[in-house]
């Protein structure tokens, strides 16, 4: 997994609440057996009309937002299905940081398994950053310092220490958990006595 340390980009703002995973990547693209190649289908139904033509007014279809690495969105981003295709599509498009007042639980976890940083800040702060999106000015996310730098100002954000460490170091969760095999074995041995039906 690619490390996440700092990220600088003109943010793209999609000011909608409840952006669900069906919106992020519709079902017809879940038939893949790969993790890559989903970027072109990100937000498919908002980006393309029924004949497959790009919809001009959709923000990610316009420069410089078509190269945005940071997405600003309304609350409850990523609700719905558990499909990891949603973060895969964002990542493949080039988005490595999503900033929203709140995230759905499964999507939030999926981000950290793909080197994407989901940042939770309040609505007012989103509006402030949105001005930079409109003005096509870059903002910078510094994970180590837990700050977003914009213009000559900065705002801080919270993140769980374990999740921060994983992103900063690009750690493989499975590798880390496999180091705890002795704990797992001990648990299984005890369970085979207390709950033999499992």
């Amino acid at each position: 997994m690619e490390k996440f340390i700092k990220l600088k980009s003109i943010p793209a703002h999609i000011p909608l609440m409840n952006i669900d995973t069906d919106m992020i990547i519709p079902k017809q693209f879940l038939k893949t057996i790969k993790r890559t190649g989903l970027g072109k289908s990100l937000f498919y139904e908002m980006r393309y009309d029924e004949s497959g033509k790009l919809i001009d007014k959709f923000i990610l279809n316009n420069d410089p937002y078509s190269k945005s690495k940071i997405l600003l969105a309304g609350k409850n981003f990523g609700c719905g299905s558990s499909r990891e295709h949603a973060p895969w599509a964002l990542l493949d498009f080039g988005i490595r940081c999503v900033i929203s007042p709140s995230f759905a639980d499964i999507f939030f976890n999926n981000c950290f398994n793909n080197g994407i940083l989901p940042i939770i800040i309040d609505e007012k702060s989103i509006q402030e950053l949105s001005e930079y999106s409109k003005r096509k000015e870059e903002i910078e996310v510094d994970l180590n310092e837990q700050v977003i730098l914009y213009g000559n100002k900065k705002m801080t954000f919270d993140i769980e220490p374990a999740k921060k460490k994983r992103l900063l170091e690009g750690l493989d969760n499975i590798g880390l958990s496999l180091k705890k095999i002795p704990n797992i074995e001990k648990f299984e041995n005890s369970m085979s006595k207390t709950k033999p039906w499992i």
Partner: protein
Amino acid sequence: MSKTLYDKIWDDHLVHKDNDGTALLYVDRHLVHEVTSPQAFEGLRIQGRKVRKPKLTLAVPDHNVPTTDRSKGISDKQSKIQVDTLRNNCKEFGINLFDVNDKRQGIVHIIGPEQGFTQPGTVIVCGDSHTATHGAFGSLAFGIGTSEVEHVLATQTLIQKKSKNFRVNVNGSLPAGVTSKDVILKIIGTIGTAGGTGYVIEFAGEVIRNLSVEQRMTICNMTIEAGARAGLIAPDDKTIEYFKDRPMSPKGENWTKAVAHWKKLFSDSDAKFDKEVNIDAKDIEPLVTWGTSPQDVCPITGEVPDPEKEKDKDRRTAMYRSLEYMGLKPKMKISDIKVDKIFIGSCTNGRIEDLRLAAKLLKGKKIASDVSAMVVPGSGLVKKQAEEEGIDKVFKNAGFEWREPGCSMCLGMNEDQLSSKERCASTSNRNFEGRQGRGGRTHLVSPGMAVAAAIKGYLSDVREIN
């Protein structure tokens, strides 16, 4: 110290806990389907890792399978590749698979309990958000992403942070025509689609106790629509009775031991909940959704809401967007909404009791001439049971199509989809934009309400049927 049901199951599965509260949780049961697993198995292969406990995983293709005759295989190339990939992966890693033409094949959340693979007090995961369904049996069950599927396959554990405790009490008794689908829609409408975020919700109260286990599954199934990690209902005698003699249920001495354990699975009377909501059953009517979020609920006797009356600006914007997508005007009567399609099925409402209820209302009647309707049983065994009871004939005689089991039009990954602007009364769980097909308009309803809509051709009150 007193504990909630969630606390008890959590503590019982804690393999390791870091200083910051990050826990390694043991997974007793893992369900796998064709859509969210290929990349996980591929990851194992790339790293040269094995499946730690193949026997604790059960696989079934459900999302992508056609619901028409499939004896000649799957014609959609990509779907076929995914289903073939699942088969090959199960073979390579030694995982039990109910393949497409196995009579036990069906929606993953229906076959788990049906086989007794699901059990009270276990931790159950699956790469599907509706894994919450299994919480109806007092198991801690939740959906995970594909990276986590890979993690479970390799370690039989998951890295988790504990959620907070939330209890929803549904008190009183349900009025006529109101079912567990209406109860969960009411709950989501009350707390909102993010109302449960950060929590595990335990459903309690007289109404929940009086529901059958299958009806409870409908409630827990849609807990994810309220944003919660999982939904839970304490097991009781009905739960124990349900599992007796299921193919994968504990047997003999193990059954006695298991039952003794299951009987301890309840929240202590003085357990502390971080949040609690009370709902009075008498306030619940048969409901429908009018918008593109499961929280957009309205009684069948009501009107489409007017966004102008909404104070929150973002919510108002979302409401206008929903109304435009749904092709509805504020203040129009819900019962004036004409439907084109009816879908009865899904992990929310595709079980035998759902089909029985629908068939009872439908018996001797016909669907409206300009409506097309389909029933997709939740599993091969549900289908078989229904056919033995003559339920298939009731549906077919009324004008419904009687299909093969799978997820079908709930998410429209196979051919079962809505066309643009087509309107559907659906017993599924999500009314998101494009969920059942690009431009398709979904109204979530109970099976009884789906039958009412099928007969009248409009969203209709189930209490007016018969």
